[in-house]
C-alpha cells in the first residue's frame, strides 16, 4: 500500500522547530480506546506536532499488538506469599489480578474474584466482547470460569478443599487466564 506509506510520510516527516511531546500519554490512550475524544485544540496540537504523532503511532501499534495478541496471561505464586495467607495474585503482564476473600465468619469457604486492570491494552475489547474466560491452576484445573461484569470483575465460590495458598503451592505455583472458547 504505497499510498498509505506516503500518507504516513507526509504526516511524520515534517520539520517543526522546537517540536516536543505536546499531549500526555493518558490523553492519547483515551482517544485510542475511544473512551474520551480529543478536544478540537488537542487534535490541532497533535496534527501540528510530528513528534507527538510519532508517539501516537507508537502507542497505537503497541495497543494493536497487544489487543490482537492477547491469547492469555499467566503468573506465579510468589515465594514471599507462602508465609502468610494468600489474598491476591497478579499476572506477569500486570493486566489481571486474582483476589481471595474468606467467606463470612462461621462459614468455611472462600470467594475468588478475577479482576481486569483498566489500563490493560486489551481491556476495552474484552469489556465490549465479553468472552467467556477461564482461570487455570498450574496443573490445568479450572479455578474459575465466567464473564466479566461491568466493573471488569468476575466472582465465584472457591471450589477446592484446600485454601487458595495451599492449593496453588501444591499445583505448580502457577496460574493462567485465557479465553475459554479454544
Amino acid at each position: 500500500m504505497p499510498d498509505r506509506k506516503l500518507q504516513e510520510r507526509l504526516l511524520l516527516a515534517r520539520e517543526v522547530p522546537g517540536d516536543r511531546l505536546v499531549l500526555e500519554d493518558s490523553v492519547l490512550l483515551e482517544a485510542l480506546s475511544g473512551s474520551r475524544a480529543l478536544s478540537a485544540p488537542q487534535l490541532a496540537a497533535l496534527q501540528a506536532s510530528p513528534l507527538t504523532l510519532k508517539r501516537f503511532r507508537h502507542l497505537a501499534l503497541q495497543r494493536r499488538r497487544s489487543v490482537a495478541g492477547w491469547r492469555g496471561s499467566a503468573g506465579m505464586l510468589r515465594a514471599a506469599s507462602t508465609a502468610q495467607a494468600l489474598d491476591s495474585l497478579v499476572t506477569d503482564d500486570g493486566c489481571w489480578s486474582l483476589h481471595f476473600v474468606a467467606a463470612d465468619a462461621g462459614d468455611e469457604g472462600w470467594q475468588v474474584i478475577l479482576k481486569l486492570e483498566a489500563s490493560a491494552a486489551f481491556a476495552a475489547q474484552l469489556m465490549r466482547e465479553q468472552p467467556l474466560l477461564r482461570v487455570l491452576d498450574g496443573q490445568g484445573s479450572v479455578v474459575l470460569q465466567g464473564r466479566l461484569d461491568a466493573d471488569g470483575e468476575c466472582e465465584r465460590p472457591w471450589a477446592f478443599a484446600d485454601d487458595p495458598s495451599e492449593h496453588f503451592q501444591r499445583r505448580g505455583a502457577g496460574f493462567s487466564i485465557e479465553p475459554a472458547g479454544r
Partner: protein
Amino acid sequence: MRLPGTRYQEHGWEHVRKLLGACSLEVFRECDLHQMLDSALHAGLLDWYTDAMAHALRPVARRLRGETAGNSYGDSVAELALALLFELQAQPSFWGGFACAVVAEHARCGAFWSTEAGDGMLRKKVNDMFAVLRDKVDSDNYQAATGRDCSPNKIYTYRMLDTAYREIEGLFANWERNAGQVGAILGRELGGYPIEVRQMTSIAGCRAEWIIRWSATQEQFGGSPGPLHTRSKRFASLKNNPDKIAEMLTEIGDYEELSANQDGDWQQDAEDATVWLEDYWRVVADTNEEVSRPLSYDRAQDGAALAALQNEPLAVRLAVFQKLLGPADDSYPDDWRDPSTGELPTMQQLAVMGGVSVPTLRKRRNETIDRLYGRVN
C-alpha cells in the same frame, strides 16, 4: 548502545558516516560549490543533493543488501545512510547548518573545496551535519518510544558515556598492561588482580567515578584529554555530577538487558506499520463528531491531496514516490519496478517514460510534493 527507539549505534556509525562522506565527495564533484554562498539557492541545492546522493547510494545499497549490519537490529549500513538522507530532506535546517559552515570556511580561506585539503574539510562538514541530524533522529525516536523528553544533546551524552564504558572495558580486559590507568580509575593501588574487573559485566556495573577518573587520566595515559575534560567544556558540568552519570549508565544497562531478548519487536512493526493510520483517522473523526462540525485539517491528511496525485501521469507519481519513500520500498507493486534492478526507474528513465526532460520532471515532481504537504494551494 541500544536505547528505546534509537537506530544509530557506535559500531555501525563509523561505516554509515564513511559511506555518506564518500558519496558526498563524489556528488559534490558534479557541483559548483560557489552556489552555496547564495542562501537563495540552498533549497534547490538540497533538492539536487538528496537526488544525487540517493542515486549514488542505490548501487551501494544493492551491493551491500543484507551484508553489513549497521546496528544490532539488522539494519544495513546502506539502509541507515539512506534513512538519514531522507531525514535530511524532511529537515532542511540541518542542510542550512552545513551551508553556513561552508560559507564561514569560504569567508576564512576562499574556495577551500578546490584546495588540496578540500576533500577532508568538506567531508568533515558533511560528517558534522549527519552526526547532528543522527542525534536529532535518535532523540525523536527515543521520545516516541518512551514518552519521555530527550534532547539531541542528551543522546550525544549517552553515546559519550557508552563509548567511555567500552574504553574502560578494554583497559580492564588488559589491566596488567594498563595497571597505571586502571589503578587511577579505581582510585587505589593495584595489589594483584582487581576484583572490580570481574564484577563489571555490563555498563550497569560501571561506576560513575570510574568514568570521571578515566576521563581525567586520558590526557596522561591516552595522549589527549577525556571527553569530560576537554577545552570545549561540552560535558564539563557532568564531571561534578556522578549521580547524573550513574543514572544514565543504569538506563543504558537496563534497556540493553531488557531488549536483548526482544529483537522481534521491530519486525512486528514492519509487518504493517501503517495500520496506525486507521486509528488516527478514527481519532480525527471522533473529535469532529464531538464538536459537530468538520474541522479543516491539513490537506495532507484528508486524502484530497492524495487524490490529486492519482491524476498525475505515472512518471510524475513514481518520481514523487521515489523522492519521498526511496527507490526500493517494500510496498511498491511489481509493475512499478524496473525488472533489471527491482527498484523504481531512475529519474532519467522516468523522464523518457513521461516524454519530458529531467528538469521538467523534477519541477513537476516538486510542485506535486509541495501540494501534498499543503505548502501551496
